[in-house]
C-alpha cells in the first residue's frame, strides 16, 4: 500500500473542492439542452434579411430560456450561414449531421428551395420563417412548414386591399381599375407575376394590362418601362422588388415625371429603410406595402400577445444596438415563438416525427401572436392564419393602415401625390 504524505493530499483535495463547488453552483451544466438548427444568410446578398431574422429568432430563444426553457430544456441554436445556394445546401447537411430535430431558415425563397430538400430527405423538420414562395409548399414535403404568409396569401391580400382601400380612394370600382405587375425575375418575383393574373380572373378584380419582369442585377435602366407605363396609365402597380431595384425604379420614375395613382408592394424592397433612404421621405409617400404586421395598433391583439409585443420591441432595440426593428426581425421572432412556445411543448418527444405531429395539432386563433396571426398549418405546411397587413409610407414612417383593427391611421397619400 502506498504511503500518503500530507504533501500529496493537496491535489485530490483541490479536485474534490472544485467538484463540490461546481455542483453547488445553481443550475450549472445540469439543465438538459435542446439543440436546434438555424440556417440563414448571415453574409452575402441577402445578409441584411438573414441577420435580422436570426436576431428575432435569437430573442425568441432567449425569452423561452429565461422562462425555464422548453419542458425544462435549455434551447440552443446552432447556426449555419447560407450565403448562397451552395452553402445553404452544405449548411443544411451539416446541421442534419449534428442530429438536430428541427431547422429554422432561410429568409430567401431561393435559399429555402435549395436547403429544405436536404432536411426533407433526412426526415428533419424544416421551419421557414421568412421566404415568401408558395411553391415551397407545393412540393409534397411532409416535414416542411412555413410560419409566415406565402405569396398566395399575399396575393389575396393585395386584391383585398385594392377593393377595401384603393378603389374608393381612386374613385373607381375594383373591376374598373387597370393594373400592371412589375417583378424581379427570381423565384419570389416570378411567382407574384404568375399569381396576380390568376387571381384577377375572379369577377370584381382589376384588369391586369401588363406583366413586366426584369433582372435585379443587370437592369440599371427602367426608362423604357416607365415610358410604357406613362402610356398605359395603370391605376395600380403590383410590385415585387428587392431594395436596390426598388430604389432604382422609383427614382427613375420620379425623375421621368411618372407617378402611378397607387402602388401595392409585396413586402421586401419598398418596405425597407434602405428604400426610404434611397428615394427620400417625400417621394416615398403613399407607397403601400403589404408586409409583416409591425407597429400595429395592439387593440387588435389578445392581451398576452400585446404584452409580448411590447417586451419584444424593447428587447430587440437593446439587443441590437439600436438597430431598427424591421419586418424581418418580427418574422424571425414570430416563427421562433410559434415553435418554442406553442408547438414544442405539445410534442411527445423532441424527435422530428413528434414535432411534425405537434405542428399539425397546434390551433391558435387570430390575435394570439404579437403579429396578430393565429396558427394553423394546412396539409401543405402553410400557416393559413398568417397574413400581411397594409402599411403606407407616411412622412418617413411605415404606418399600418389596413385592416382597420390594426390600423394606426387612415391612408394619407392616396392617390399618390404627383399622379394625375
Amino acid at each position: 500500500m502506498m504511503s500518503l504524505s500530507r504533501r500529496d493530499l493537496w491535489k485530490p483535495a483541490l479536485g474534490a473542492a472544485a467538484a463540490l463547488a461546481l455542483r453547488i453552483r445553481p443550475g450549472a451544466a445540469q439543465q438538459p439542452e435542446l439543440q436546434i438548427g438555424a440556417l440563414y444568410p448571415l453574409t452575402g446578398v441577402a445578409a441584411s434579411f438573414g441577420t435580422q431574422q436570426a436576431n428575432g429568432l435569437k430573442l425568441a430563444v432567449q425569452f423561452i430560456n429565461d422562462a425555464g426553457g422548453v419542458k425544462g430544456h435549455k434551447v440552443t441554436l446552432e447556426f449555419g450561414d447560407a450565403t448562397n445556394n451552395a452553402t445553404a445546401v452544405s449548411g443544411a447537411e451539416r446541421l442534419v449531421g449534428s442530429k438536430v430535430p428541427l431547422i429554422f431558415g432561410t429568409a430567401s425563397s431561393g435559399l429555402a428551395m435549395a436547403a429544405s430538400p436536404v432536411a426533407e430527405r433526412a426526415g428533419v423538420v424544416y421551419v421557414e420563417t421568412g421566404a415568401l414562395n408558395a411553391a415551397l409548399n407545393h412540393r409534397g414535403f411532409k416535414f416542411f412548414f412555413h410560419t409566415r404568409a406565402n405569396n398566395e396569401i399575399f396575393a389575396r391580400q393585395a386584391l383585398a386591399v385594392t377593393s377595401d382601400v384603393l378603389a374608393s380612394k381612386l374613385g373607381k370600382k375594383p373591376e374598373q381599375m387597370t393594373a400592371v405587375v412589375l417583378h424581379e425575375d427570381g423565384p419570389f418575383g416570378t411567382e407574384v407575376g404568375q399569381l396576380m393574373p390568376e387571381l384577377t380572373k375572379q369577377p370584381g378584380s382589376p384588369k391586369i394590362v401588363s406583366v413586366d419582369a426584369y433582372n435585379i442585377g443587370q437592369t440599371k435602366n427602367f426608362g423604357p418601362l416607365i415610358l410604357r407605363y406613362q402610356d398605359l396609365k395603370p391605376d395600380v402597380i403590383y410590385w415585387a422588388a428587392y431594395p436596390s431595384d426598388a430604389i432604382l425604379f422609383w427614382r427613375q420614375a420620379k425623375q421621368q415625371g411618372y407617378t402611378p395613382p397607387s402602388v401595392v408592394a409585396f413586402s421586401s424592397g419598398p418596405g425597407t429603410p434602405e428604400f426610404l433612404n434611397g428615394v427620400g421621405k417625400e417621394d416615398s409617400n403613399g407607397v403601400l406595402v403589404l408586409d409583416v404586421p409591425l407597429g400595429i395598433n395592439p387593440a387588435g391583439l389578445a392581451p398576452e400577445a400585446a404584452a409580448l409585443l411590447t417586451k419584444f420591441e424593447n428587447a430587440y432595440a437593446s439587443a441590437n444596438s439600436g438597430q431598427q426593428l424591421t419586418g424581418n426581425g418580427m418574422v424571425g421572432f414570430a416563427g421562433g415563438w410559434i415553435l418554442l412556445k406553442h408547438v414544442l411543448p405539445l410534442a411527445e418527444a423532441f424527435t422530428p416525427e413528434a414535432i411534425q405531429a405537434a405542428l399539425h395539432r397546434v390551433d391558435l386563433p387570430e390575435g394570439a401572436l404579437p403579429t396578430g396571426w393565429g396558427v394553423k398549418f394546412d396539409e401543405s405546411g402553410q400557416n393559413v392564419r398568417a397574413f400581411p397587413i397594409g402599411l403606407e409610407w407616411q412622412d418617413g414612417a411605415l404606418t399600418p393602415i389596413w385592416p382597420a383593427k390594426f390600423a394606426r391611421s387612415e391612408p394619407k397619400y392616396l392617390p399618390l401625390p404627383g399622379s394625375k
Partner: protein
Amino acid sequence: MRDIVQLVVQSVLLGGVYALLSLGLNLIFGVTRIVIFVYGELVMLFMYVGFLFWKHSGIDPYYALPLLLLVAVGSGALLYDLLFRRLVRAGHLAQILATLGLSYALQNLAQLAWTADVQSVRSAWNGYSIHLARGNISAPSLIACVVGLLAATGLLQYLRRSNGGLAMRAVAQDRTGAELVGIPLDRIYRLTLVLATMLVALSATFMLPLFSVYPTVGLDFVLIAFVVVVLGGMGSIAGGIAAAFIISLIQNFSGYFFGIEWQDVVYFAVFVLTLLFRPAGLAGVRGTEQLGE
C-alpha cells in the same frame, strides 16, 4: 413619336454613363491585356468612398472627386506594384484566378466593413430635371453623360498627343515591338494602372447619385463594361465609346418595343453576332482579339 424622342434622349444619356464606366477597363485591357475581373469591385470601392464622404461630411458627393482622384493615384500604383506587375506576364488562367479571387475577397470585405445594406446618396442635383416635351432628363444623368464624353475626349487627346499616351498605344499594339524600341514597359504599365484607376474614381463619383451601392454592385457593372470594351474593339477608345452608345440604344429600344425583360437579351445577342463576324470588335485592330503577347 414623343416616346421615340424620349427613348433617343435616354439612350444618349445612358450611353454616356456606359462610356464613362468602361473607360478605365478599356485602357487596362487595351494596354496590359490583363483579364481584369476585379474591375467592378474597384468601381464599387470608390463608390463606397464617395458614399462615406457624403455620409460623414454632408457635402454634396460630387465634391468628393478630388479626394477620390487622390486615392486613385495611390491605390492604382499600389495595385500595380503588388499584383498587376506579376499578372502582366502570367498566363490567362493565373490572371483570371487572381482577379476573380480578389473580386470575391473585396466583395466580402466590403460586406464586413459596411454590411449588405443598399446605400444611396442624394445629391442636391437629384431633384433637378430638364423638362422635355415628353418626360424629363434628370440632372445627374446629364452630368454623368457630359463627364463621360469629356473624359473620353480627354483620354483620346492624351493618347494621341502625349509621350505617355503614345507609349501606351505602342504597347497596346505590339508589346514586344514596344520593348524592342526601348519603351519602359514597367513604367508604362504603372502609368496605365494609375490613369485607369483615376478613371474609375471619376466614374464612381458621377455614378453614385444615379446608382445605389452595395457589396455586390460591381458584378452588375462589370458585365456591361466588358461588353462595351470588347464590342468596341480592344485597343480602341473611340470604338469603346461608340459601342457604349450602340449598346444603350439597343437596350432602350428593345426594352420599349419588346418589354423590359428583353433589353439585356437583345443587346447580348447583337454582341455575340458582332463578334462572330468581327472578332476584334467594331473598331478593333485585327489581331488584338488575341489576349496576351
